């Protein structure tokens, strides 16, 4: 692991969060599942990092590791999650709890499931306010109302008295976003928050989040499998495969000219990039089982460019200036091959 290359992030201000060689493993009966195995990235202040990968690539587990909610049999076995000079992975549960929902918030994938069905919206918002600040019930309610207004919920006073089932999916996700924003956190981990929504509502929410992040100065980790979402929203992108980051860089550079064959495959399989009438392009094969990863590069068996050296695990390295990838045979132009 070449830590030096990672700290040379494309944007070099003091980052909000820095993840170094994170390892989160699940100790199941069938064996140890290395869901996250040496993930490193930085989240620059006020910027959006898109964390992209297929299901099972470890992106969600990375999100839960950051917020300290990895449930048994999973646990963080190595690496550091640095926030304000503190390693979150080594904080006690009580210390972590004070950060959660306060300085670091999370938005979940399915808005139909994230709000407690038997508690009113006001209860669920006020308890969040009062978990971290000593304010009166009235003040907390006031703040809840203001935040609901901020995420674009009409007549927030009435809506506060509603139960979750009285909201549509999009509205519920707005409530969840409002809850995440209650304490103006420095970082929000958003785990596919628009996947379960209609495309039109997805667009609205994305625009809303972008605006909010810009006005409040909140950094975002946007976990998704959808490259088109990341393209419009993120500043930086980290592509994950089989528990590792395989490519990392500025979003326009990576999407324009991917270095890693896997990234190239992902981009190729976005339907809008295919020509009409032509069969959709796809990456051959399946995500390998994390229980029995073959030696060497995990993408080797599906990779069109794989060669003999790929039997040895490639390190992540800066292949072009500001461009990291984990590949022995990156996709380069002839001129670059010599320099790289």
């Amino acid at each position: 692991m070449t830590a030096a290359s990672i700290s040379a992030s494309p944007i070099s201000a003091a980052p909000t969060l820095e993840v170094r060689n994170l390892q989160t493993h699940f100790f199941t009966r069938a064996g140890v599942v290395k869901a996250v195995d040496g993930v490193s990235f930085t989240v620059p202040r006020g910027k959006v990092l898109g964390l992209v990968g297929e299901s099972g690539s470890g992106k969600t587990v990375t999100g839960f590791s950051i917020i300290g909610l990895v449930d048994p049999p999973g646990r963080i076995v190595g690496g550091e999650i640095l926030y304000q000079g503190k390693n979150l992975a080594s904080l006690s549960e009580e210390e972590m709890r004070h950060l959660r929902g306060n300085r670091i918030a999370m938005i979940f994938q399915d808005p139909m499931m994230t709000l407690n069905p038997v508690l009113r919206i006001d209860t669920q918002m006020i308890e969040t306010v009062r978990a971290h600040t000593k304010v009166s019930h009235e003040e907390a309610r006031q703040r809840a109302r203001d935040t609901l207004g901020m995420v674009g919920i009409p007549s927030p006073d009435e809506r506060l008295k509603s139960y979750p089932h009285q909201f549509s999916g999009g509205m519920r996700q707005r409530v969840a976003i409002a809850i995440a924003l209650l304490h103006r956190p420095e970082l929000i981990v958003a785990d596919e928050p628009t996947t379960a929504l209609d495309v039109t509502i997805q667009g609205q929410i994305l625009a809303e989040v972008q605006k909010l992040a810009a006005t409040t100065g909140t950094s975002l980790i946007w976990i998704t499998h959808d490259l088109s979402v990341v393209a419009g929203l993120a500043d930086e992108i980290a592509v994950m495969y089989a528990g590792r980051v395989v490519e990392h860089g500025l979003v326009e550079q990576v999407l324009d000219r991917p270095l890693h064959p896997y990234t190239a495959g992902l981009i190729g399989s976005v339907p809008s990039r295919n020509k009409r009438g032509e069969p959709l392009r796809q990456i051959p094969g399946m995500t390998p089982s994390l229980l029995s990863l073959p030696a060497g590069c995990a993408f080797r068996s599906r990779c069109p460019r794989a060669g003999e050296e790929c039997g040895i695990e490639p390190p992540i390295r800066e292949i072009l200036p500001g461009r990291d990838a984990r590949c022995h045979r990156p996709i380069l132009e002839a001129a670059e091959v010599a320099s790289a």
Partner: protein
Amino acid sequence: MSVYLLRRLIQALGVVLVMSLIVFIGVFAIGDPVEILISPDADQIERERAIVALGLDKPLWLQYLSFLGNALRGDLGRSFVFNEPALQLILNRMPATLELAFGAMFLALLVGLPLGLYAGLKPNSPVSKGIMAGSILGFSLPTFWVGLMLIMVFAVQLGWLPSTGRGETREILGMRWSFLTRDGLAHMAMPALNLALFKISLVIRLTRAGVRETMLMDYVKFARAKGLSPARVTFVHVFKNILIPVVTVVGLELGSTIAFSVVTESVFAWPGMGKLIIDSINVLDRPVIVAYLMIIVLMFITINLVVDLTYSVLDPRVRLEGK
């Protein structure tokens, strides 16, 4: 809401009619009604007179209508043994049974909820495994035998608790209650525990299953992601969700608790409805049996109705559908 209530009431009325028909058939068609309704000590002339008086010479459907009419006026016949109206006899015994049943349900929740919660939160700890093994035992132990063992240990060997009867009672609302006196409570302790045993196991299992299911829900993880204290997550977010099914089932179990008090009351000679019905069956005091059955049916229907209404108050989603 009121439409919903009305619909439920009409349904309930339908069930009462069906049950009255079943009881009627049970008493009048399967058995010999003359034998069932007229004291076996009566002589021939008395029998003839009673047959005419009871309308047993009329066609069956007319008999059913008059049975219904009498039942509506609260006349379910006279007990041969006590020579009192059967309904009155049963109503007098009802407070004893009710306080025993409610005592048992209270104990079941008091013991079962915390144990089930613990077993659900820490499913792999040895204590939880012990709790679950205990609950299998609670399901398997025959109630009457446990009652006998309780008497043997606490009344005979240790001499801590009285073995039979209600003890000292105090009168409220014209009914006598044991739970208001210290002596009465001492008498109630063993029977209530005995009756509660099965329900404790039930509550433990329901609570544990509920906790384990709820803990996996996204909204619990989201509650934790909000930085709430573990106590708040457990007791507000998890507990309120499992309370709904547990309360429903326990409420529905009130009927079966009252029914099972037949056994407990016999073991501890607790003078309630259950003891009365067993004695009545043993001496073939059939008007009392019929009256008991009709009362139990009414009770069941009322319980079901009340549970449904409580459920709609507890779960906002049900309330909406009722509108």
